[in-house]
């Protein structure tokens, strides 16, 4: 069973993931409390997206352990997936179905009640109502990303995993995304996101983690105070490539 009032949203210990000869996560340890917005920073190949895929349970680790809200994800797959919402690189939508059809279909996959109401609420939240009956194929990448965000919010997950969510979004949509993240934090839920827009992310986040070649290079619970240190650590991972 997933416990009701856990302290940690995510506890990952000694995570190792290799793709063939390439080590992507190399004994990574993190502990993320509930109710925090954590931003993952690092150069390309640092392991940010792989870590989010592992936490989304799309990629299996080679060794290590992960618990979410007190439950081991290896033993509680479907129950833990019900607690997470993910927006990864690709929008992962059916191109020949409309926005509404996509959202209603995925609402069925999440076994939601009052599907029409949930679709209306989340589409209003991300501002995609005007194109609900447009086929996804006809929409821009940025708009598709917003649909993916709506899908990830529909089941009110306790943990939101966002992989470069602002990519392809216009300024208005980025501001809307910021409000959604703020709402999440104020309701005691947890957000983990990756980004390359570092300064903006540090304003938004409660915690910044700089990944360096699959390990935690720096973990700051005060990103605004430690801004210079974080920027220096981030820059060093980028320039070291």
């Amino acid at each position, binding site marked *: 069973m997933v416990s009701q009032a856990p302290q940690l949203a995510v506890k990952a210990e000694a995570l190792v993931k290799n793709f063939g000869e390439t080590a992507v996560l190399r004994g990574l340890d993190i502990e993320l409390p509930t109710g925090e917005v954590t931003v993952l920073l690092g150069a390309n190949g640092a392991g940010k997206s792989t870590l989010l895929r592992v936490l989304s*349970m*799309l990629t299996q680790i080679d060794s290590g352990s992960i618990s979410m809200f007190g439950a081991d994800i290896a033993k509680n797959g479907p129950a833990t997936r019900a607690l997470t919402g993910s927006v990864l690189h*690709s929008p*992962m*939508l059916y191109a020949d179905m409309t926005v509404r059809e996509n959202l209603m279909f995925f609402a069925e996959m999440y*076994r939601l009640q009052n599907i029409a109401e949930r679709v209306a609420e989340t589409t209003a939240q991300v501002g995609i109502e005007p194109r609900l009956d447009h086929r996804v194929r006809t929409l821009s990448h940025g708009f598709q990303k917003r649909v993916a965000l709506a899908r990830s919010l529909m089941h009110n997950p306790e943990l939101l995993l966002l992989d470069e969510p602002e990519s392809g979004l216009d300024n208005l949509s980025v501001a809307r995304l910021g409000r959604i993240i703020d709402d999440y934090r104020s309701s005691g839920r947890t957000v983990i996101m990756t980004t390359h827009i570092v300064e903006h992310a540090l304003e938004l986040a409660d915690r910044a983690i700089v990944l360096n070649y699959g390990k935690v290079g720096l973990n700051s619970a005060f990103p605004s105070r430690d801004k210079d240190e974080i920027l220096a650590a981030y820059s060093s991972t980028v320039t070291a490539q």
Partner: protein
Amino acid sequence: MMGSLAVIWAIGRKDLLLEIRNKDVVVAVAGFALLVLVIFTFAIDLNQGNAKLVGPGVLWAGIAFAGVTGLNRAFALEVEGGTLEALMLAPISRDLIYLGKALGNFLFIAVAQIIVIPVFAVLFNLVVFRWEMLAISLLTTVGFSAVGTLFAAMSVKVRAREVMLPLLFLPVVTPLLMAAVESTGHMVNGRSWSDMAQWLQLAVAFDVAFVVVSAFIFQHILED
């Protein structure tokens, strides 16, 4: 239980909706199978004896080869769009995804057969609109979908998937093909249910075994 059935039906219904819009799979499967039938009508002297002798084999070989084309396409669309991963994010067990995809494939192959079997009846001048044919067709389609969905998932990440799927699929469905051909042969020769019982039993056993085993294996295939 009802929740699981609703998820399976939702995946199958979604595949059907996409197929109605794109017509990728049914057209490919029916078109390929019809082509096989037409070529054989030219290649063979179709007097009544020959038609009863070779007709069942031609019909089921055509549907099996054509089915591979459709199965490949049905799964490739899911992977290319990344939507298989979206399904994997949902709090449903992987075997429900398998059963939903298999249901979709069952519907595609069944619709293709609704087009192909009447044409077969006309070209080979055989009476096939009988309950026996419905039973044979249903059992064979269940088996094709069960095996095909599993192997399509296995081969979809392989570079040479168009080659890999038939190499995996056709040898495994050979017992089912034999059952379909033999029981169809009995039917067109006017024999009774009891004459074809052993072949139908083989088909039932094949279907049960492969639906259960494939659903179990499928969840391991999906993981990285």
